[in-house]
């Protein structure tokens, strides 16, 4: 403590230890039993998923050795209750879950969005085309029952990351034959096309 530099070092690093303690204390409050939405333990830290469904199918086509489906979705959710002071951002993603002969459970991410603490926290997507098409591991998507679920990763400022899934499920069945985009565009119920012989 005899020179300016020694004192500066002591002050800066002691206050950094204080900041670390504050961050640790804040991470304890991220526990769901302590802090819910707006610091209220009675309100669970959980978004409200109002609506998740497939709105219109664009195409279902084979791409080489895999099937690929493209469609649009409706998603209405309020993520305001998923935030408190120790949440930096929430990563929302829509997952298609389905069963094929090859796998009992397939999970494919179709759409995602990052909601930061300062952003608008209400998602209202209407007839939005999915960002990533639904691709299976082989040509087995025809006639498959698909469940759309909303997942989210809560990313805190200081704490562990947690993942949640909404109870609301959007169910639909893919057509039993391939549907091409161009033919669907002409409308009239979407003419179907025979499976390509190459697959």
């Amino acid at each position, binding site marked *: 403590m005899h020179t300016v530099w020694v*004192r*500066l070092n002591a002050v*800066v690093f*002691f206050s950094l230890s204080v900041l670390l303690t504050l961050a640790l204390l*804040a991470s304890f409050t991220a526990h769901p039993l302590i802090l819910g939405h707006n610091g209220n333990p009675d309100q669970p830290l959980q978004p409200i998923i109002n609506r998740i469904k497939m709105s219109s199918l664009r195409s279902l086509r084979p791409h080489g050795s895999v099937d690929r489906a493209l469609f649009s979705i409706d998603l209405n959710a309020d993520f305001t209750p998923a935030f408190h*002071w120790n949440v930096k951002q929430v990563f929302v993603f829509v997952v298609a879950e389905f069963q094929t002969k090859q796998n009992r459970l397939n999970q494919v991410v179709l759409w995602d969005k990052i909601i930061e603490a300062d952003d608008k926290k209400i998602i209202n997507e209407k007839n939005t085309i999915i960002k990533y098409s639904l691709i299976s591991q082989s040509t087995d998507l025809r006639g498959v029952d698909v469940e759309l679920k909303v997942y989210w990763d809560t990313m805190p400022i200081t704490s562990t990351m947690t993942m949640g899934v909404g109870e609301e499920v959007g169910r639909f069945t893919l057509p039993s034959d391939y549907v091409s985009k161009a033919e669907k565009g002409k409308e009239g119920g979407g003419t179907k096309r025979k499976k390509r012989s190459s697959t």
Partner: protein
Amino acid sequence: MDFKGMALSELLFYYICIVSGAIGWIYGFVHQSFLQTFYIWACGLGVSVVLCVPDWPFFNRNPVKWLDKSVLEGKSKPSKKTS
């Protein structure tokens, strides 16, 4: 800065940092904003840097009293004889 000044400076920044951190944490918790906590903590850091780092006059109120040179010389002579 004298020895008592050093002790005072150290105690000062301990208390300023801890108290500002505690106030900031509680304020941030109530207002649900960790950024507010950080700002108040940073204010505490700024105040303690200004207050405790430079050699202000109030850290020099107990100057070290060195022994008189003649006293030291007077003592060293008999000590040489005994050794």
